[in-house]
């Protein structure tokens, strides 16, 4: 009996009886029955995992989770990728417990090798030779590229002043501890800020409405529980939430499966019957897009009228929920309960009132309200997507009020999300000193084109100018250049046609990326950035989970790639502040970064992780294992101490502010970053485009553009093996399709006054009539008439943000018809996706 057979049998936990049977069979073969197996693999010789070098690392993109990737390499080439098996943390193979689950990578992570070695990989510095956007470049040396950028920067700063360079770094390469690309702690912000010429972009595309709500209501965006707590819920209401698509946290979707096995009931409020609904066997309540706040208000109405609220919780912990919880200074103001009951405007926000707005039967609203108020503990997970609307912040604020009135906050199995950030990692290995996030002006991220096109005739409220305490307050930025670091924002922000007009007015567009992105085609200069496989870093959980994953330099940087830290440091030296920018670096950091990076990372581990998070594993041991998973003393539940020990919330009143002290006290809204009035209590406010508006005469469909599963925003759109499994398409209901004569697979055009895209149609009963769905992030591909053949919905979205800064990605009306125009799914040519096959039972 060979060792292999033994270990295989034990690992497959076979019974002893069958194991013996198998051994007997094996011996029989050895005894003379010669059986010769052929060669197994499609190509020989085949490298087995155990012949290869194993390196633990992680995925690294801005998706909402972070998982382990294990590179199996031969020499300097990654041959294949696997994921967590439980053994790297020091446990036995395939250890996978509820307390310490494996961090299994999703389909995007598993495709990383295709991205790393893709045809779109940017390998050398490139300089534009044609018109901007024409996509013609020549290869240049790093010396030429960096001189060009540095000289242009000096010229622009000198001529147009300290607001002329716009920071559009984003999270495409972010969430390492050393190589970061976000707006607050990122490398570009530090670089442009120290240089003294930076306009920053303050609103977060994914969840600004939600961020605003969490900050106003709870005083923090850390209003989340760790994902394992979902396993303890008795009722989970997925409000516009589709964890089966977004993955959202290391194992959220899996813990919800455990909840289901323990008897938890699920409800989905969404225009689509998503895979999350089918997996968790949810009660689906289809709702018209952008009307979520109205339905939540109606639930609150039912709960108040039937006295189902947790009055003790309300009295103790909330401000402004009802007349009794109004602070003295606000006695003459509206409270939430009286708004809901219609005391002020004579209109009770009853289920009957909400029914024609939301397209949801009053009886269903009542039933859900009853379920939510009487099931304990219940998690109302108010997701980000319904907040990406005109007045989206009202939906999130309303959800928080309903969460609070039922007392589902601070308890295991409840939920106060919101943004939902939970356990906090130590997130930065380079200095977060006085040079962090210096900005001369800061605007709503989706208003840059409006600002550029209308400068200087722009009012501060139009661009959401963040207030300053010095004499530059209110100064409209004169943007003349853009830096993209880990960002494909040109492809991802709203109203791309307006962006195309604006970018032609700029004098410098720099794109730093590992991939030639659709944004990159509009740049003046492309700088090749090493991927996370090619530099040393450590990975943090994104959103949920409590672990660190080491990210060693798995292979040498491809082509002439450099890390973004190397590029900024070198530019900083050339512009005269290199020592301050990267204090541990020497002048040769551009060519020699490994030792310096190692020092930063070791100090981060020792001074922050070990010293402050009670971790005993040494840096050397962490590097050897590749992963460290925390075992929490108790489940991480947001606001548990507030509820159990009377700790104050981080709001001005120290309470859950249904009535926001901050909002109540603003007098001149134009001087705020929001620009326009936001009510101090949550209210239903009619959006500027929705199925109830008159614009439906021309544009009868409400378009939503959720996050796809087969891309992270625009990242991975060029990966053939991902794209063949799904299709960029518009999803519409079968009854709408029948009326328009459209069948699945027909090419259609989707258009409104802002643009036009061409996509195949997917006809289904799983989508609400009147609603169209196109997933965001397709790589734009314009024909000669400016029609997008790829199907990027941001040619249709509006760049008018919600007052609180929420992008109105999902506030879009469109029309649809069959077309002769061509759809092009990608820059390359692929066989037709076979995902259509077996899609509907009737097709059999």
């Amino acid at each position, binding site marked *: 009996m060979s060792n292999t057979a033994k270990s295989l049998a034990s690992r497959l936990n076979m019974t002893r009886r069958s194991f013996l049977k198998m051994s007997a069979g094996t011996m029989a073969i050895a005894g003379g029955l010669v059986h010769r*197996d052929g060669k197994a693999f*499609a190509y020989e010789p085949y490298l087995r995992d155990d012949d290869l070098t194993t390196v633990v690392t992680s995925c690294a993109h801005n998706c909402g989770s972070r998982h382990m990737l294990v590179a199996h390499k031969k020499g300097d080439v990654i041959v294949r990728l696997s994921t967590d098996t439980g053994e790297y943390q020091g446990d036995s193979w395939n250890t996978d417990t509820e307390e310490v689950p494996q961090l299994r990578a999703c389909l995007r992570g598993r*495709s990383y090798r295709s991205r790393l070695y893709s045809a779109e990989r940017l390998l050398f510095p490139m300089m534009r030779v044609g018109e901007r956007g024409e996509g013609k470049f020549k290869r240049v040396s790093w010396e030429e590229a960096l001189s060009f950028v540095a000289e242009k920067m000096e010229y622009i700063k000198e001529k147009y002043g300290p607001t002329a360079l716009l920071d559009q770094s984003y999270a495409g390469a972010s969430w390492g501890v050393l190589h970061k690309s976000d707006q607050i702690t990122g490398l570009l912000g530090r670089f442009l800020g120290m240089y003294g010429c930076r306009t920053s972009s303050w609103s977060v595309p994914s969840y600004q409405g939600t961020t605003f709500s969490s900050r106003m209501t709870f005083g923090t965006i850390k209003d989340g529980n760790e994902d394992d707590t979902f396993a303890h819920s008795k009722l989970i209401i997925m409000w516009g939430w589709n964890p089966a698509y977004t993955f959202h946290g290391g194992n959220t*979707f899996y813990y919800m499966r455990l909840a289901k096995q323990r008897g938890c009931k699920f409800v989905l409020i969404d225009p689509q019957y998503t895979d999350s609904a089918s997996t968790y066997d949810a009660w689906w309540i289809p709702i018209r897009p952008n009307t979520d706040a109205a339905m939540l208000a109606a639930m609150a109405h039912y709960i108040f009228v039937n006295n189902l609220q947790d009055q003790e919780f309300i009295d103790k912990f909330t401000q402004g929920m009802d007349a009794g919880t109004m602070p003295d200074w606000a006695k003459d103001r509206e409270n939430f309960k009286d708004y809901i009951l219609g005391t002020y405007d004579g209109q009770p926000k009853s289920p009957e009132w909400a029914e024609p707005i939301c397209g949801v039967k009053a009886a269903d609203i009542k039933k859900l309200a009853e379920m939510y108020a009487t099931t304990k503990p219940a998690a109302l997970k108010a997701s980000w997507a319904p907040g990406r609307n005109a007045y989206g912040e009202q939906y999130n604020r309303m959800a928080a009020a309903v969460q609070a009135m039922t007392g589902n906050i601070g308890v295991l199995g409840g939920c106060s999300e919101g943004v939902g950030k939970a356990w906090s990692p130590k997130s930065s290995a380079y200095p977060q000193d006085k040079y962090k996030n210096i900005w001369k002006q800061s605007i709503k991220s989706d208003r840059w084109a409006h600002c550029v096109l209308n400068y200087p005739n722009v009012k501060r409220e139009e661009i959401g100018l963040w207030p300053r305490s010095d004499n530059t307050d209110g100064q409209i930025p004169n943007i003349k250049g853009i830096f993209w670091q880990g960002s494909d924002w040109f492809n991802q922000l709203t109203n791309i046609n307006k962006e195309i007009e604006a970018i032609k007015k700029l004098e410098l567009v720099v794109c730093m990326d590992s991939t030639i992105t659709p944004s990159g085609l509009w740049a003046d200069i492309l700088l090749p950035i090493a991927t996370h496989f090619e530099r040393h870093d450590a990975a943090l959980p994104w959103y949920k989970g409590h672990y660190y994953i080491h990210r060693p330099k798995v292979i040498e940087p491809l082509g002439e790639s450099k890390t973004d830290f190397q590029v900024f440091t070198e530019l900083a030296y050339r512009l005269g502040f290199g020592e301050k920018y990267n204090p541990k670096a020497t002048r040769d950091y551009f060519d020699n970064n490994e030792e310096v990076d190692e020092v930063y990372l070791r100090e981060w581990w020792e001074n922050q992780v070990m010293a402050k998070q009670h971790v005993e594993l040494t840096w050397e041991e962490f590097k050897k294992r590749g992963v460290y998973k925390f075992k929490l003393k108790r489940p991480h539940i947001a606001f548990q101490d507030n509820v159990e020990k009377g700790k104050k919330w981080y709001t001005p009143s120290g309470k859950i502010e249904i009535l926001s002290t901050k909002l109540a006290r603003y007098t001149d809204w134009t001087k705020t970053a929001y620009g326009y009035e936001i009510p101090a209590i949550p209210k239903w406010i009619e959006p500027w485009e929705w199925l109830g508006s008159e614009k439906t005469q021309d544009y009868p469909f409400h378009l939503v553009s959720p996050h796809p599963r087969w891309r992270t925003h625009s990242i991975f759109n060029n990966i053939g093996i991902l794209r063949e499994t799904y299709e960029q398409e518009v999803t519409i209901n079968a009854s709408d399709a029948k009326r328009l004569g459209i069948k699945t697979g027909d090419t259609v055009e989707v258009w409104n006054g802002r643009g036009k895209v061409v996509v195949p149609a997917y006809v289904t009963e799983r989508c609400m009539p009147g609603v169209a769905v196109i997933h965001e992030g397709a790589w734009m591909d314009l024909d000669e008439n400016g029609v997008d053949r790829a199907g990027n919905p941001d040619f249709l979205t509006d760049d008018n943000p919600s007052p609180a800064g929420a992008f109105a990605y999902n506030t879009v009306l469109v029309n649809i018809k069959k077309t002769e125009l061509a759809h092009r799914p990608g820059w390359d040519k692929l*066989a037709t996706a076979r995902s259509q096959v077996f899609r509907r039972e009737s097709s059999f």
Partner: protein
Amino acid sequence: MSETQSSPLKIIRDAIKRHKRETYTPVVPDVQFGFVHNNVDCIGCRACEIACKDKNGLNPGPRFRRVQYIEGGTFPEVYAYKLNMSCNHCAEPACLPTCPTGAIFKRKDNGVVDIDSTLCIGCRRCEAACPYGAPQFDPSDGLVKKCNMCIDELEAGRKPYCVMACMMRVLDIGPIDQIRAGAYQTKAIGPGETTVRAVKNLANPELTNPSIAFVPHNKGRVEEDSQQEEN
């Protein structure tokens, strides 16, 4: 509905039986490994597919593992579930006897059905014969390839890449007899759940005796022995 003597189905069935008897005596493995998939709890993310593609170095085109989406009903009363298959490593593989070069073989130790790439001539007869679409033609080298249950991983004492990729832990392998008997410990089968040999719209398992078990969706259930009649 019972079959009449002259029904076309009956004629085909008899022909299959005759063909199998005349051409092929299948290898009886010491232990037959097979897959188990939970049709309901699968989120359909296709991490298993991509893990498989990456491991086997496949371009767009051939897909050893295929997660199929099934949906039905009328708005708003709809349902959906997933069906996830690669090669079912059948007890009586339909592909095997069609191979003119003997490239397809069934392993004695674990019942894995495999193609010897050095013998495959890419004639695609196996592709046509398989009722589950397992053999995949790869135009990049003109060969037919398919799932070999990651035989290298099995031999190393581990499980295939697809199983180890499953984020929901709804896909697993094990001795198929034990899986069917409910005697195999696996997260793919939840508490109180049982498995079936076939679900709606799949070929009759009597044809090839596929080594796969499903936790079915209610809408995917078939009366196992009357499946042909339902079709």
